[in-house]
């Protein structure tokens, strides 16, 4: 038999592959990850997958309970709301709003926050202290209050909600990035690069970023679960997605009037939000857990 590999080579997986390896072995994290991927697929492909449109209702099928009830109907698996709209389709379309938009918001705030944060980490002295205090002040304003203010300026509506939530999360990313970059800058390998003659940007790009990217990812999942809750809360309060958009928080608020007659219109969107947030948190926990284990190895 011909053997291709004569000498057994040792494989040194990159740090990221190490992380992925540990992550894969944690069953809970994988469940979270699969759910996360499922939600992403749903938010992209919901127009194709959903059985009905979320906006027009069938007025003959008002307030049907879910299919497992005695009065339910199998073609409306999760029941209908007071205008005859299918709950399952609305929830699926809502994934792209509540979940999908939160994803986009986090990526947007991440990029901007990291850029500003790393640039500001390079400053020192009064400017740095000033920025620190300013960030402290902004971080001490309740996020909902800040989002409300921005919505008050821009007016209600889902696009303005996205701006509002993005603006609220940028300071958090700036803060984290500053802290992380400053911490890395104290380490020896940065000193080594500097002695080699690298300028600040090179150090940032080649040395520091690869080391903080995982921390940023873990922070991003935290931010995303918070973003999902923010968007849903603003939708619930009527400041976010406006009728008839099927954002999960808005669906819940809509179902509130008929809570006692049709409780599924309130339970189901809440469960959807819970599912999405738990999935995101599981992924985040998995990353943090894997980071810790990788450090210990």
């Amino acid at each position, binding site marked *: 038999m011909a053997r291709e590999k004569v000498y057994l080579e040792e494989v040194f997986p990159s740090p990221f592959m190490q992380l992925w390896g540990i992550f894969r072995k944690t069953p809970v994290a994988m469940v979270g990850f699969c759910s996360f991927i499922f939600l992403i697929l749903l938010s992209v492909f919901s127009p194709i997958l959903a059985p009905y449109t979320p906006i027009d209702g069938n007025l003959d099928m008002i307030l049907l309970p879910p299919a497992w009830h005695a009065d339910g109907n199998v073609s409306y698996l999760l029941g209908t709301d007071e*205008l005859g709209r299918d709950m399952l389709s609305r929830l699926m379309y809502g994934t792209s709003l509540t979940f999908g938009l939160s994803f986009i918001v986090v990526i947007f705030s991440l990029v901007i926050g990291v850029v500003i944060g790393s640039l500001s980490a390079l400053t020192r002295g009064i400017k740095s202290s000033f920025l620190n205090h300013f960030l402290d002040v902004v971080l001490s304003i309740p996020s909902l209050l800040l989002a409300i203010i921005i919505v008050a300026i821009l007016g209600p509506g889902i696009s303005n909600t996205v701006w509002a939530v993005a603006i609220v999360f940028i300071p958090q990313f700036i803060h984290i990035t500053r802290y992380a970059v400053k911490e890395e800058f104290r380490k020896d390998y940065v000193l080594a690069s500097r002695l080699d003659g690298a300028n600040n940007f090179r150090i940032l790009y080649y040395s520091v970023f690869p080391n903080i990217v995982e921390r940023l990812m873990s922070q991003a999942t935290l931010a995303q679960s918070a973003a999902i809750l923010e968007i849903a809360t603003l939708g619930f309060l009527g400041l976010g997605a406006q009728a008839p958009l099927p954002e999960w928080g808005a669906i819940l608020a809509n179902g509130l009037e008929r809570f006692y*007659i049709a409780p599924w219109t309130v339970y189901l969107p809440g469960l959807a939000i819970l599912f999405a947030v738990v999935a995101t948190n599981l992924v985040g926990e998995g990353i943090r857990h894997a980071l810790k284990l990788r450090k210990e190895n």
Partner: protein
Amino acid sequence: MAVLPMKFKYLFLLKITLSTFLLSGCNESNKLSLSERSIIYCSEGSPETFNPQLSISSTATDASSKQIYNSLLVYEGKNNTLAPSLAKSFHVTRDGKKITFYLRQDVSFHQTSYFTPTRLFNADDVLFSFNRVLDNKHPFHQVSGGQYPFFDSVKFKDLVEKVEKINDFTVRFILKRNDSSFLANLATDYAIILSEEYGHKLNLKKAQHDIDILPIGTGPFKLKDYRVGSLIRFYRHDSYWQGKARIEQLVYDISTSKTSRLTKLLAKECDVSSYPIAHKKIAERTDLTLESITALNVAYLGFNTKKEPFNNKLVRQAIGFAINKKALIETVYEGQAAQARSILPESSWAYNSKTPQLDYNPSRAKSLLEAAGYSQGFTMDIWPMPIQKAYNPNALTMAKLIQADLDKIGIKVKIMSYAWDTFLRRLSLGEHQSFLFGWTAEHPDPDNFFTSMLSCSSREKGSNSTFWCHEEYELLLQKALETPNMSKRKNYYAQAMVIINEEIPLLPIAHSKRFQARGIDVEGDILENFGGINFYNVSKNVLTNTNILPQPKTLTKERN
């Protein structure tokens, strides 16, 4: 090992005893009697005023008319006959133009923290109350705006020549012409009697505005506290002329959301709840009952006939044919309303089953639109009223359904939502194109529908926001008022309804029932025949008979 655990145990024990002491409360018996001597009513909104003369909104009259005030006459019985109240009898001359009222002599006004009466009710109070509305030079006429919507819409000033005091307990009204609806108007919830002595005192203090926000009346309850958006607290008027009420404290817990009223009812935080939803759920509970009354009301979609394109009759008719009223009733009223043929419900004696109505016919709607020159459709706005009333429990949902209906014939609808007082204000300024509103009658005379909703004079007074004014219609109404012959009046009103359904300044949608939910321990009738509420006869079922109060003379109100 000894010291530490002992300290913990001791502290723990102390905390437990302290908290049980606090939470159990010393006077358990006192608390029971406080809630059994009081009624909490979950109401749907904050009244803008405590004087029903100034407002037509049922939120204001529910909080004031039968609770704080009395009127000269009231309605009684299944046939709604006139009965004495503050006036113990009256006499009408043969030409119908002079009406004399003989007043009760044992009626006292409220005594509160802001006013103590020194005399009983007499003719001066009647003169004060009516002259405020009639006489432009009356010191209180301009107070709180000078608008008296009900009186203006029934053209009270044009009818009454003057009011005279014959002696301390006799008053005479001199009318300019014979009008069969005058006595009916005096028995409404709006013709209340204020205290002249209180008015005089406020005039001296230069605080005239207080007469409408810190009210004084003769009714079974007096105002103790009002917190806007939160609660109204009434105490019992102990020297009420009909005998004091059985409950000592009446609290209106203002909860604008239907779900929160239902929640409080189900959690026993309210004894009675207005405009309840989820009737099936309430029926399932053995400790709650649901009651209803067929009221004289109508919900409609009104058009601003001053604005394009609603000055065009064809456009209005087109929209009328395009709306599926049956679906609206199924969805918004959950089936518990009658589809409106015209503005009068079947329970009115002037109802005509042959009035031609606009059925659901979208293709006819489309051809009418084309005939009017709008084959491409257009954009319009609908202003649904933001609070719920008996005649329309959810104007917003109704607007959404109408939006879907009109979309099918090419009309795009924008739904505009405003807070209640903003809504009323802007409606009176005519800023709208169309609006969802309604009308609840104050007395059984059909004129109350026709004049208040669509007469030329009611345009300025706020009850006719279609700004429609039709000469032939006005004439018919006038003729109907001048004759006491019922069949002739019925004929005139039938012709008036034909005109309304032809011109469609508004599209009548439904007549509803007024519902109310209460705990089974609450006894006594609350709902009145014409949409108001009255807590005078209410009591709570006390399991142990501690106080036997003298039974007040209750007016029997039969329900249809």
